[in-house]
């Protein structure tokens, strides 16, 4: 289990905005110890976009929680600008795996909630909220309550809430999981645009390897039992952002094979089927 050297190879910034240094985390589940994370090293540069892929239960969400500062009971250290993370802060924003909208607030108010500590004027907030609802295509549903939304709509509100504060770090836990292909593509591009414009540092957990390659500067592949980083693959500029580009497909297949889905692209499934 080699600890992959964790330097950003194609970060837009060079300083280590976020450092995850030898982090391990254990849980007790039904009387057994579960090693959710084992010796995780990762340094993320300012403005870099890191994609994380890995099988179900390999500790991706746990890692994001630690970076957020929601849980400080782990071994190792997580630093932002060299300072140990002690608690959540407005500089780090997250889209949780479940939407976590407050059921008693309508869509608008849920997004606005993120701006409570922003110190902005009411009018400015209102404008920001409207802009972001427009971004996710839900202006029409500003007054609807979460119980009246479809799964994908709720997820989009959560995305708007995470973006509205224009955070320095954006942590995304399968933000587009419940979205249809078209909306997903559109929001991927919007995300990329925002991240580039604002210089946001982003960590994206996703199961969609295309998405990981398309958006990431580097791709972290995690393995389970114990949850650990298996490889970190850089997305060189050569790969470009064209999904039909052979380089793109090559890298995607490489990631898939690291995840255990062997053979190239569309053969993978057949392969799995045969071996099952």
């Amino acid at each position: 289990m080699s600890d992959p050297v964790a330097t950003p190879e194609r970060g837009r910034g060079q300083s280590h905005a976020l450092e995850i240094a030898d982090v391990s985390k254990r849980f007790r589940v039904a009387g057994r110890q579960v090693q959710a994370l084992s010796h995780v090293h990762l340094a993320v540069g300012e403005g870099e976009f890191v994609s994380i892929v890995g099988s179900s239960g390999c500790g991706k969400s746990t890692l994001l929680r630690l970076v957020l500062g929601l849980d400080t009971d782990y071994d190792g250290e997580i630093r932002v600008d060299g300072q140990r993370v002690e608690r959540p802060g407005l500089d780090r924003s997250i889209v949780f795996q479940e939407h976590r909208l407050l059921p008693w607030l309508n869509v608008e108010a849920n997004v606005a909630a993120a701006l409570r500590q922003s110190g902005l004027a009411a009018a400015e907030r209102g404008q920001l909220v409207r802009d972001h609802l427009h971004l996710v295509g839900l202006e029409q549903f500003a007054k609807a309550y979460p119980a009246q939304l479809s799964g994908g709509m709720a997820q989009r509100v959560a995305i708007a809430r995470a973006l509205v504060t224009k955070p320095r770090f954006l942590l995304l836990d399968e933000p587009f999981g419940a979205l249809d292909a078209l909306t997903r593509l559109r929001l991927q591009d919007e995300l990329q645009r925002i991240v580039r414009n604002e210089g946001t540092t982003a960590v994206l957990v996703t199961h969609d390897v295309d998405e990981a390659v398309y958006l990431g500067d580097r791709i972290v592949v995690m393995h389970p039992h114990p949850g650990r980083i298996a490889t970190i693959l850089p997305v060189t500029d050569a790969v470009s952002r064209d999904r039909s580009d052979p380089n793109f497909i090559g890298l995607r297949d490489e990631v898939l094979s690291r995840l255990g889905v062997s053979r190239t692209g569309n053969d993978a499934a057949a392969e799995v089927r045969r071996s099952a």
Partner: protein
Amino acid sequence: MSLITIMGLERLSHSVPIAPPPFRSIGRHLRPLALPITLLAIWELLAHAGVADARFVPPLEAVVARGIAEFGAGGLGFNLLASLERDLIGFACGSVAGITLGLAIGFSRIIERLLGPVLLVHRQIALFAWVPLISMWFGGGEAGKVVFIALAAFQPALINTWQGVSGIPRSYRELADVLTFGWFDFAWIIAIPGALPQIFTGLHSALIYAWTATVGAELLLNIAPGLGGRMNEGQHLFHMDLLLLCILLLGGVGVVFNVVAGAVEHRLLRWRIP
């Protein structure tokens, strides 16, 4: 609001506590005692400093001495047991009935519509008003007392179960529909566990009300051994030491109830503390 700012919302900011060092955890266990001990100390001080009238505030040692005497020869232990017995019987009957009916109402909209208003009106009517009827229907003896206590425990158990069940998220109700649960499965798998925190609040209240009603029953219905009578004696003869002793006993029993209920609750609500 000052209270809130003083104690802060720590739980919200340190939800995952780092294991406390051992000496701190000992301190933690002593916390519940801090305030009562302080109060007792103030009491003792008041009694001895002559600030308070000794007739109203007898010194602690007088109460303790009285306690020793009463438990020895006065049969206070016997009185206490008698009260406890009828309290627990009444509590058990009342809370089981309350929870059952609460589940039924929470389960069926029709039953809720039928019985809800009646039960709410019934709740508003003072327990005391039932005394004549109870003493006529069940007699003033042990049966009447138990009915009275059960009635006291019934209401909070009912209301809280009812509210708890109606607060169960719709998604879980739908799940029950999808799995074609009957009323028993619904109650056992969904309603009771889902409403458990509120049911426990109800049982907490029920314990308190039942205990109050125990003393009330001993005062309002036919005489029988019990703490109520002793309390009455203290009031009647103006023996403040006995009265305070009884109050301490009543409170002490409350603490014991609370500890037991808390342990049971903790065990049953394991799933919430992963």
